[in-house]
């Protein structure tokens, strides 16, 4: 059962992202904060670290492609970035301890890196003219904050789910 739960959660997070995006941007007096939900990639990073790198990269490719076609209309942006991030996450487990807190920080850092790459890309193709400081204050920091909060709330659940799957697999093997 847990076997099907893993892709199901990925689909659910994919569909929930735009719903949460509707709350953004948030206006304070003269400060605008864009909160970009990155739930799916955080989940995929967890899969990559705790479960299976190859699986995560494949999910990243599929969902990245869906993301590109449905939202961005530029094919080949997220469908490269998602697998790349998953790949780096999976590769990094050689060097880091797989503690939940460390994974959380790593995942958020990777998302921040991805956000920065996207900013550079959109700057390059003239989709945005946002100066860097504004990007940092208005987008990157709020996004990091919001996603960190999300992971702190649900990171343990991801880990629990993946552990359940690993246990199930072991049981079916013996």
């Amino acid at each position, binding site marked *: 059962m847990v076997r099907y739960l893993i892709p199901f959660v990925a*689909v*659910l997070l994919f*569909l*929930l*992202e*735009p*719903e*949460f*995006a*509707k*709350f*953004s*941007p*948030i*206006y304070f007096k003269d400060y*605008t904060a*864009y909160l*970009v*939900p990155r739930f799916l990639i955080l989940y995929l990073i967890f899969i990559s670290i705790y479960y299976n790198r190859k699986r995560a990269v494949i999910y990243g490719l599929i969902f990245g492609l*869906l993301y*590109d*076609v*449905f*939202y*961005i*209309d*530029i*094919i*080949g*942006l997220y469908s*490269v970035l998602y697998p790349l991030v998953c790949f780096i996450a999976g*590769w990094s487990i050689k060097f880091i301890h797989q503690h939940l807190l460390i994974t959380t920080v790593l995942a958020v850092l990777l998302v921040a890196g991805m956000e920065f790459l*996207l900013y550079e890309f*959109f700057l390059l*193709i*003239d*989709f*945005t*003219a*946002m100066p860097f400081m*504004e990007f940092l204050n208005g987008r990157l920091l709020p996004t990091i904050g919001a996603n960190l909060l999300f992971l702190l709330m649900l990171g343990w659940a991801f880990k629990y789910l993946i552990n359940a799957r690993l246990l199930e697999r072991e049981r079916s093997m013996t």
Partner: protein
Amino acid sequence: MPHFSNKKLIVLLVSVIFLVALISFSLRDRQNATFPEQIIKDTVGFAQGIVAKPTNYITGIFSGIESLLNTYEENKRLKMRLEEFAVLQTKVHNLEKENANLQELSDKEQSLLDYNPIHATVIARNPDQWEEKIILNKGSKHGVEKNMAVMTARGLIGKIILVTPYTSEVELLYTNNSNYRVSALVQAEKEDVYGLVEGFDAERNELVLKRIDSSKKIEVGEKVVSSGLGGIFPKGIPIGEITEVTTDDFGLTKMAFVKPSADFSLLEEVIIAERSITSIDGLDGAGTNNDLTNENTEAEGDE
């Protein structure tokens, strides 16, 4: 990083080239989604629509609570305005009657003001928010076409940029896209003054109305509505209110900042305005470069 063999390196290079080609293909100013894209969009849109329903319901509850808390204040304010409305209503009634009579006299059946509303629900908002896009649950099967105006009860929010059979994509007025123009008019004291809403000032969070004739006089607080001259938008959809008037960069025309009347956060139910009078793809259009004055090519440009 892991060690690369020769073969891997070649695969990597080829995929980089493929990637660049793919990105540049999709970056072109495309008029229509390709067939596989349409299928993906419709399928994801369908699933998204299912998820959007309960979430819209929940956010609806929250905004319901919020408005409940404001009820007392709002009620007080509305009561004050109610009396004005009674007078206004009779006036509008008379004007409408007079207008109908005059139209009958002049054999003019349709006006730029008329439109058929298509009600649609927002099923998603582009989560990465680099482009200001929302996705609606109505598509070409429901009569939605590219470049149609999209509005809420309070005013214009954007226009349709891409249509698939069951979904459509809206680019909001808040955009950096320099090709995004909406022909607008300022309801000034003496006469209507025409201009183009071009772009958005990120620092002020306001729209920029450009190319206003510098001999015309406009003032702060005057209302800006769509002019209907762009070809596809109906006339008279409220856009916003002028907050500042200046001269533009070259000093030849005037420029004004417009505070949009619609609320862009938490959009849920929107109206797509299908103009009753024949629409042509003109200024608001897609840059098809077709000859719009010629009947035959007009149909092509109208896609």
